[in-house]
């Protein structure tokens, strides 16, 4: 692998500097040889490679919607060098063998590091603990466990899961959705629009009440809790309360919840069906504020590709989820950086360092310094483009940003010193 010399990049407060990528790590630029490949980064911001805590790669089981190859290609285009692959595949990642299979697919096909998330319960059924320890001790080294797509509603099972993973420094990532409050068909934020359109409502408290319970359990067990895709102002309030009391809780927000609102659902377009649902303006404002002040620790995409035919149903019947990997940084730039809510250093924390720390990934989210793994994302803060879903690397097209003018920040991505994406 040839050395790469990135020249003149903005190093997040350290001013403009050169970066030399050699053998998968950053090396002293002064040692660059004459044959080095040069990348002019004048005007570009250098970020540590982004880490997504919440990706659905669909392989194994639904390779028509996404594969490890296509999903990580999309990740690389979005500036990511590592993705946590959610467990709700077919078969479910609830054994050591299944986790090792996903990790092996990543090593074989990945354009980014693929780290399996293990299921909390067998088959995501919420009844019995999955083999958490075996997954953790496997070569996949699972540290994040989630039944994402399903909420662990049984309080005792949730307590046991939190207690159990403490033995190997695991974290329980909860999909917070009280199924009794939300109802089995919930597909739209419960409010004026759901009432008018006749769509089954998903009340905000169905999320926050579960989070309130879980932070109490995390406090009781002195364990690590992570809250997936926070979507409501009420949940933010609960998280502030918990963090003020020292509970070891982290939380993520998805890009679509930072920009899109319930109003998108008015035309029943299933592209905008996502779980948890898009929320009204006041929730979006609360999420932005919470991401700015650190109550929400990370941005995670909840990248959820679906084959076209799984979306071409009536809104209530269509599969929930939307693409996110390629546009996540664009949305964060649009909603947080350009309005002055976050600086680039904050972005590096919320999209790289902190997610890597939550997942205990030692080779990701590191400083851009000599000797560190050469995971790098080069960003043009000024570029914009109209999103075209046809240009996606994903096999799916459920892209909620199609036709929108958004920042187009990612110029190049290097994973372990190797270019996984270079803008043409």
């Amino acid at each position, binding site marked *: 692998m040839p050395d790469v010399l990135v020249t003149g990049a903005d190093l997040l407060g350290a001013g403009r500097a050169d970066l030399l990528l050699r053998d998968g790590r950053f090396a002293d630029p002064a040692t660059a040889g004459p044959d080095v490949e040069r990348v002019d980064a004048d005007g570009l911001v250098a970020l540590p490679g982004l880490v997504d805590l919440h990706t659905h790669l669909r392989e194994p089981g639904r390779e028509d919607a996404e594969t490890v190859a296509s999903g990580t290609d999309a990740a690389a285009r979005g500036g990511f060098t590592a993705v946590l692959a959610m467990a709700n595949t077919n078969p479910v990642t609830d054994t050591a063998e299944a986790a090792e299979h996903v990790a092996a697919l990543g090593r074989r096909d990945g354009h980014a590091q693929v780290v399996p998330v293990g299921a909390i319960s067998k088959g995501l059924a919420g009844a019995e603990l999955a083999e958490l320890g075996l997954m953790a001790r496997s070569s996949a080294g699972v540290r994040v466990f989630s039944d994402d797509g399903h909420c662990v509603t049984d309080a005792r099972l949730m307590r046991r899961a939190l207690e159990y993973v403490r033995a190997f420094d695991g974290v329980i990532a909860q999909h917070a959705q009280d199924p009794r409050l939300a109802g089995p068909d919930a597909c739209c934020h419960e409010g004026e629009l759901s009432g008018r359109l*006749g*769509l*089954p409502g998903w009340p905000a408290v169905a999320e926050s009440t579960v989070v309130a319970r879980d932070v109490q359990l995390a406090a009781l067990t002195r364990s690590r809790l992570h809250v997936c895709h926070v979507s409501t102002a009420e949940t933010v309030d609960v998280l502030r309360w918990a963090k003020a009391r020292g509970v070891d809780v982290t939380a993520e927000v998805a890009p679509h919840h930072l920009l899109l609102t319930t109003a998108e659902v008015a035309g029943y377009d299933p592209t905008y069906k996502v779980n948890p649902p898009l929320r009204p303006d006041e929730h979006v404002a609360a999420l932005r504020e919470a991401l700015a002040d650190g109550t929400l620790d990370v941005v995670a995409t909840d990248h959820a590709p679906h084959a076209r035919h799984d979306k071409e149903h*009536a809104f*209530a019947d269509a599969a929930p989820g939307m693409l996110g990997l390629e546009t996540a940084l664009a949305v964060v730039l649009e909603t947080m950086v350009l309005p002055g809510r976050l600086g680039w250093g904050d972005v590096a924390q919320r999209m790289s360092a902190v997610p890597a720390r939550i997942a205990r990934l030692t080779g990701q989210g590191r400083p851009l310094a000599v000797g560190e793994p050469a995971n790098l994302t080069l960003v043009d803060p000024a570029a914009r483009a109209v999103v075209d879903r046809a240009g996606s690397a994903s096999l799916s097209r459920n892209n909620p940003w199609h036709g929108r003018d958004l920042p187009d920040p990612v110029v190049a991505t290097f994973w372990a010193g190797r270019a996984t994406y270079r803008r043409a």
Partner: protein
Amino acid sequence: MRHLLSAADLSLAETSAILDLAEEMAQVQARPVKKLPALRGRTVVNLFFEDSTRTRSSFELAGKWLSADVINVSAKGSSVSKGESLRDTVLTVAAMGVDALVIRHGASGAPGQAAQWVDAHVLNAGDGTHEHPTQALLDAFTLRRHFRTTEPDLDTFAGKRVVIAGDVTHSRVARSNVLLLQTLGADVTLVAPPTLMPSGVETWPVTTSSDFDAVLPEADAVMMLRVQRERMSGGYFPTPREYTVGYGLTRARLASMRPGSAICHPGPMNRGLEISADAADAASSLILDQVAAGVAVRMSVLYQLLGGEDAPATPRGDL
């Protein structure tokens, strides 16, 4: 008018035109030979993803009495249960050379989505808990006739008070009626226990109440909504008995109604639950008139959509 997806699509002028034409269609309905050549050569498909006898029969008769070729497709238990997407089902049916699709679906918004995929005219015959615009039209037709028995020149419902009582949250009939009655100028009051009142109802152009007895004596008409059996186990109200006491049109409440005020119900009725037999069969009950009006109104709507066109519609979109 290209499609009829929502009662909100109709202006006052369009509503009046549909109701006026329905009066003429009702004359046809009264003839020994109930047939007009208006839609000869046109094809109407009743595409029903959800069971319905009265609405489907009503649309079928309406099409046939206008001489259209009408076929019924029950998508429930056929293509859909085999995993076909809504879009593929709709495009497949439309590809047969259909001029109008009458769609009933258990999911809100489905007819509107279908209208984006095909060139055929789409009529919403009831979608989930969203809307049922032809029901609202036939209710308006029935009420207009009723009101005209004492006010022959009545055109709008200005000054008329209509109470809609029952499970508003899950009622597509209520939503369409609220919209159409607003267009016609009526004052609408929704009556329901708070558990059966939709989110955001405070933004609707209606008054709301949980006290049926307080609002009923002022009503010029009361529309009772059917209570679905599954609501009883869903925790929306404690017992059928309690529901009836609070929100049923009982014999006592029937007696409290203003003389001349009308009773409507979209059917099928739960006698003894939301409506007593006395009320259902009262002289002021217009329930069977509503059923009869359904055919005339749907003839009128089909004619408004399809009459006078030359070129048959063709499907669009790639299969």
